[in-house]
């Protein structure tokens, strides 16, 4: 167990603190005008577009917990800290990260989880990565070390730079430290399984979303609809009676949600490109060729499909959301060379201006988020 660490100034001469070395590398790269490929554990290197930079900036040696006190519901860690290590530490205090991040590999780091902004099955119920971010320390494209946000739940001093880093894929700065909100780990949970088709599954998920019950996951896969709930024994007995279904054993339930989160199911293994369609949750079954898995109360639809990217983007936009080419090989890239949905011209111009404000020389992860920057 980590003792209460009230020391606010992190120790730069701690052996696991690589801040000074990282700043030096960024400044050297700036002097040479050679862009950097920022890498944590490399577990999610497939996500986004390939980085157009040769030189690596390795974050995984910059690791370790800086502050964690359970009663503050917050943890501050260096960005290279392994996700698994953080989760084990929290679990020992009966706490957890609310957003249930996918690891996609044993070396996954907190910095990578924040930079990719990917949340797991609990996302609609307990919030996303960005919802949990309280503060960051980063190196900007001028080689300056800056801190934003903090370790407290509420903080509206200055622009919300911390949350802006989530999902930016390292294109705005090098994350050095991250403070995250944590939540109590439910003492009891249950996973209920029902048999139904995808259309019916969406309808049931939307019905559930209107009930005042403590859901922490919902998914449909291969003809089976899964609901995960947490709470006291009494509350779960009541909820089970209300929504129905067969309870899974604790082990089977744990395996199911882990495999879903980590994309280990058979569905995810086929060679076709994997598309992630994020849509308004009540969107009816999409008329698309190919197999699908549904998550997030209907708001997330995974497709293995060879339908043309342009068509998928239009379908997702009509459904109030967007389509991402999540897993692919180079031959499957859309014509415009982007895996993320194109932005309207004004938003794209502002997005480029934000990039310019943080990284004027284009030092960090060029081409990773959008092809052009």
């Amino acid at each position: 167990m980590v003792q209460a660490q009230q020391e606010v100034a992190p120790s730069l001469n701690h052996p696991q603190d690589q801040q000074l070395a990282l700043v030096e590398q960024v400044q050297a790269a700036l002097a040479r005008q050679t862009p950097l490929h920022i890498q944590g554990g490399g577990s999610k290197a497939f996500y986004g577009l390939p980085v157009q930079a040769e030189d690596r900036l390795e974050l995984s040696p910059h690791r370790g917990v800086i502050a964690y006190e359970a009663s503050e519901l917050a943890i501050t860690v260096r960005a290279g800290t392994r996700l698994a290590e953080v989760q084990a530490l929290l679990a020992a205090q009966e706490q957890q990260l609310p957003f249930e991040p996918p690891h996609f590999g044993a070396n996954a780091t907190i910095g990578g989880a924040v930079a990719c902004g990917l949340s797991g099955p609990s996302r609609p119920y307990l919030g996303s990565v960005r919802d949990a971010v309280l503060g960051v320390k980063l190196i900007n494209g001028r080689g300056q070390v800056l801190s934003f946000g903090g370790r407290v739940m509420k903080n509206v001093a200055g622009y919300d730079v911390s949350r802006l880093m989530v999902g930016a894929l390292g294109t705005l700065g090098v994350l050095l430290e991250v403070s995250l909100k944590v939540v109590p780990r439910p003492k009891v949970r249950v996973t209920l399984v029902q048999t139904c088709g995808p259309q019916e599954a969406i309808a049931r998920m939307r019905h559930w979303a209107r009930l005042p019950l403590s859901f922490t996951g919902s998914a449909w896969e291969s003809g089976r609809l899964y609901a995960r709930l947490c709470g006291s024994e009494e509350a779960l007995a009541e909820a089970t009676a209300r929504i129905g279904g067969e309870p899974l054993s604790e082990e089977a339930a744990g395996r199911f949600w882990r495999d879903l989160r980590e994309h280990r199911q058979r569905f995810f293994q086929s060679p076709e490109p994997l598309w992630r369609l994020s849509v308004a949750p009540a969107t009816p079954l999409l008329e698309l060729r190919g197999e699908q898995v549904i998550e997030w109360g209907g708001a997330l639809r995974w497709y293995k499909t060879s339908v043309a990217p342009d068509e998928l983007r239009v379908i997702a936009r009509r459904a109030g959301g967007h389509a991402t080419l999540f897993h692919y090989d180079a031959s499957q890239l859309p014509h415009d060379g982007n895996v993320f949905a194109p932005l309207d011209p004004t938003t794209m111009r502002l997005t480029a201006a934000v990039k310019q404000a943080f990284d004027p020389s284009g030092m960090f992860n060029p081409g990773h988020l959008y092809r052009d920057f």
Partner: protein
Amino acid sequence: MQRIPDERVLQPRPEIIDRLRAILPEHCVLASPVELAAYECDGLPAFRQRPMVVVLPERIEQVQAVMRLCHAEQVPVVARGAGTGLSGGALPLSDGVLLSLAKFNQILEIDADNLRARVQPGVRNLAISEAAAPHGLYYAPDPSSQIACSIGGNVAENSGGVHCLKYGLTVHNIQHLKLVSVAGELFEVGSEALDAPGFDLLALMTGSEGMLGIIVEVTVKLLPRPERAQVLLAAFADVASAGAAVADIIAAGVTPAGLEMMDNPAICAAEDFVHAGYPRDAAAILICELDGTNAEVSMEVLRVRELLLAAGATQVRTAKDEAERTLFWKGRKSAFPAAGRISPDYYCMDGTIPRRELAHVLTRIDELSQAYGLGVANVFHAGDGNLHPLILYDANIPGELEKAEAFGGDILELCVEVGGTVTGEHGVGVEKLNQMCVQFNAEELAQFHALKAAFDPDGLLNPGKAVPTLHRCAEFGAMHVHKGELPFPDLPRF
């Protein structure tokens, strides 16, 4: 003390009023002194400034036309919602346009299947929950001013409320915004799904205090109403025990829907005002709301009751019915006006601290109160560490306002010192510009200015608010040496 923190050279351009009249209906442009007087200040009346002109557009195209004109003519624009903000974020400029969104007051859609509401920015916070109620839904963030404050202002300030611990701030409860840029372009951030491609501009816009764009439509998330909510009221003989009880409840894995603390002066003021049944002899009370299903709430009430007693509560009461629950909350929600009854003026602070620092911070505030000779009543969103000391003063006594402001500044700097922040939910506005110099260094402030310039290169949107200039910080630093270090040592002083 500098009352109006605007460092620009003023450029009054009265001909702009006629040009605004040419693009807006006549009743949408106000320029007579009587009409302008109503817009002199927001919820922080210590700062007042009459705007050059007020416009009240009724359609998005009109907002765009106003912005195109002001952009072309380089006239600054301050957006305003209901004007209930507590940090002077909507303080007008004497040579600027005050753009009121008050006429954007329609709820456009309640989409119960997707758990969302699409509304115009001038819609009142509470009106959203009222419109969603027939569907069994509500909008969670509930600032104390929820009967009056508008959702556009809530987004601009990232407003909180008493239920943030469990349900989050505004940023956690909105999905999509339509905005008008400084140049008059309409653009959107967020989506109807749970995320959006590209940078998280939705998060960036939330709490940006009208500095990056004009919000013209908001899509909020709705939640199913909990089956049951129950409130406990606990009295403590000392503030430290109440603080410890808060940590015990959180550490036990309970996430209350609300967890509020009031100290004795706040208890007495509220009790005299609304007769909520608070124990007047307690040093502190905690109000703890638990919500969920019947079964859950029944269990948790028992558990929290035990925790409170174990932490030294002298008395724990559970609201016996909905009327008493409402009454318990009424005392807390009327703490501000109650302070207004015991003192001619009060000044509301908004720092956030790590919970473990509570007793230390309250002791320091008490010492400062004695040193300044000004009373203080403390109300506290204890669950999330957000402290609202109400400094009691009399503006008619020369020098008291300045004294109250200096006292407030000291409290905010204390919050930063213990690892917290100068504003939890009220925003920086004009009020906390100096304290921003304490919380952020010159490079961090320069990064904020660069970000602002990405959206507003000419600095026309709400200039002078939210982020201080480095010049101002250097001046503030010169009179205010923090921990023996001169802030901004690299900046030229003049």
